[in-house]
């Protein structure tokens, strides 16, 4: 069932800063939806429009079938966790959690019980008498979650809630949020700029860029089947190797050329338009060997990560070419190696940044 539906949503700040342009999106009941994109892509604005803190310039928002454009945030039955958490510093943890039910005039006994339940759910019962200032970052995070879940909202909105935590705690809280989602079975809309967070948490990812939706799909779809250069580049760590060059069609064979590199593309690309193009392949899809390969180069940097090792090759471009190899193999900086790639795992993007799929003719649009 569709829980939230946005139709033709648009938000303009000031005279002409268009944060969100004509956005259509629906959120299904119980799903974990992640809005992801670089800063300024409109993801937070979208979330804030759902919450009711920003009024859409145009378009409609429906929550549970009800048009909420003119409904106050407090009446939308939503819960929100803010980026800076926004705990009330002068109230104890218990008072913070109790605030929502108290505002909704729940009787004191029920309130007490619900505060306890919420605190237990995120394991902070020992903190109830403390002030938020006395809690650590992770604890404060849990308090913010408890304060939200105690009101039993139909949707949880989370605005980059983990961005202030260090890496280890972030992974911990990520698991916590995931567990909470599964336990509560509620709908979560989560905003982040971290692709890893998006990949690990989401049922469905919405990739945004410059106020428009670039792609919607499951994490694996987004990772394995990006619709554009932008999405391909955004997801994955280390990110996809993207090599700008030109595509030519010579007697029925597609050939990609870039400085120091020529790749014969599989026949499925024979329909692709000649011209400016970008070739992409994931670092983990590369194989290195002493001889052969589509590209030969000197290893500039070896980065052992334990299980895997990253090899950086200097291609003269802006970004090095990165290959992931098993950690058991040893390489040295300065080694000259050949890099080969499985042609079935190649991605091709046109001059407009859109993906050129196998067997397709591309959009044929050139950037101005």
């Amino acid at each position, binding site marked *: 069932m569709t829980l939230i539906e946005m139709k033709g949503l648009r938000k303009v700040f000031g005279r002409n800063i268009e944060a969100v342009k004509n956005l259509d999106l629906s959120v299904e009941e119980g799903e974990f939806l992640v809005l992801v994109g670089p800063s300024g892509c409109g993801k937070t604005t979208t979330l804030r429009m759902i919450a009711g803190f920003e009024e859409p310039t145009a378009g409609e928002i429906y929550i549970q079938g009800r048009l909420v454009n003119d409904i106050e945030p407090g009446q939308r039955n939503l819960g929100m966790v803010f980026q800076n958490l926004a705990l*009330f510093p002068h109230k104890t943890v218990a008072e913070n959690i109790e605030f929502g039910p108290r505002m909704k005039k729940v009787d004191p006994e029920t309130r007490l019980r619900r505060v306890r339940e919420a605190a237990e759910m995120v394991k902070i019962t020992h903190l109830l008498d403390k002030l938020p200032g006395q809690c650590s970052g992770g604890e404060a995070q849990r308090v913010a979650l408890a304060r939200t879940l105690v009101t039993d909202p139909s949707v949880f909105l989370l605005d980059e809630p983990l961005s202030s935590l260090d890496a280890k705690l972030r992974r911990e809280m990520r698991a916590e949020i995931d567990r909470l989602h599964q336990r509560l079975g509620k709908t979560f809309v989560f905003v982040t700029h971290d692709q890893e967070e998006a990949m690990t948490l989401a049922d469905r990812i919405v990739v945004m860029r410059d106020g428009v939706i670039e792609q919607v799909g499951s994490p694996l779809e987004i990772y394995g089947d990006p619709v554009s250069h932008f999405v391909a580049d955004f997801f994955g760590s280390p990110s996809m190797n993207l090599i700008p060059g030109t595509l030519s069609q010579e007697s029925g064979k597609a050939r990609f050329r870039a400085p120091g590199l020529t790749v014969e593309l599989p026949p499925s690309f024979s329909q692709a338009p000649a011209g400016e193009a970008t070739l992409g392949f994931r670092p983990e899809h590369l194989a290195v060997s002493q001889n052969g390969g589509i590209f030969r180069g000197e290893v500039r940097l070896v980065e052992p990560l334990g299980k895997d090792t990253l090899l950086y090759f200097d291609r003269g471009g802006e970004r090095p070419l990165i290959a992931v190899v098993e950690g058991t193999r040893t390489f040295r900086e300065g080694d000259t190696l050949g890099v080969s790639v499985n042609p079935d795992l190649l991605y091709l993007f046109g001059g407009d940044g859109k993906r050129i799929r196998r067997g397709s003719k591309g959009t044929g649009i050139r950037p101005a």
Partner: protein
Amino acid sequence: MKRFVKKWRYPLFRTLMLTAWALLAGFPIFWITSTSFKPDNEWHKWPPVYVSKNATLDNYRMVWPIHQTGSIFVTPDQKGHGVAHESVTANKPWHALKNSLLIALSSTAIAVAFGTLLAYGVSRYRILSDTRMFQLLVLRMIPPIVVAAPLTLYYSVLQLMDTASGLIVVYFITSLPYAVWMTKSFIDEVPREMEQAAEILGASRWQTIWEIIFPLIRSGVVATFLFILILTWSEYLLSFILSKVDVVTLPVQLSKYEGSTEGRVYGHQAALAVGITFPLIIIGIFIRKHLVRGFTFGMVKR
């Protein structure tokens, strides 16, 4: 040796400067307090008497009489017999204290209440542009004497001359800019998300202001209140011009101890001055915690 000098040079300099400043600022307070306890023959003595050996409370009894009848009031003499006095200032200080309390407290309270609400609107909804905010401050840059003359005209037409409400209105208007500017800086410090969190949890606007904003800016509001109270409490010029017969405030009363018949009655004046000053100092000590937090502006942990 060199390191020793280096280490002590700045603390020493700082201590010297601060000591000098403290002496400069503290001496008048010491002098007025000391004079207030001197018997009348020591008021004008040369070389000056710093701490009287014949300290007496007579000045206080004169200025703040406990028993009084009309303009005649009674103080006990050394043998304990009541002695009747009559003075140009008789009976007035208590009256002036009452006026000052009423006028200063109510005008300050109104200014801070209005100012805080206005500041909230400016901080959150920009109901006043930066230009307007600056103009509000410019209001304070006009020398009061410039507006005093036209004000007397308005006030006599409006029948506000020599009334407590007249002074309350003028003090409210003149201190509003301070109230707005000061409280706004505190409200600005409260993250907007804090309010939005309350809002999405179902709090109404008033509940949000009362439960979230106000407790967080309370120290700032207290500091603002005291700051404005001090200004209003000791304001002389407008009070003197707009009201000097019926509704006399303490600073105006203080200026009346230079009677043409009595000469300068330093001791009485000093006793009154101490009476005016000390309540403020005592309030200041009581709310010191708020003042420190309020004036340092670091009240919200983000």
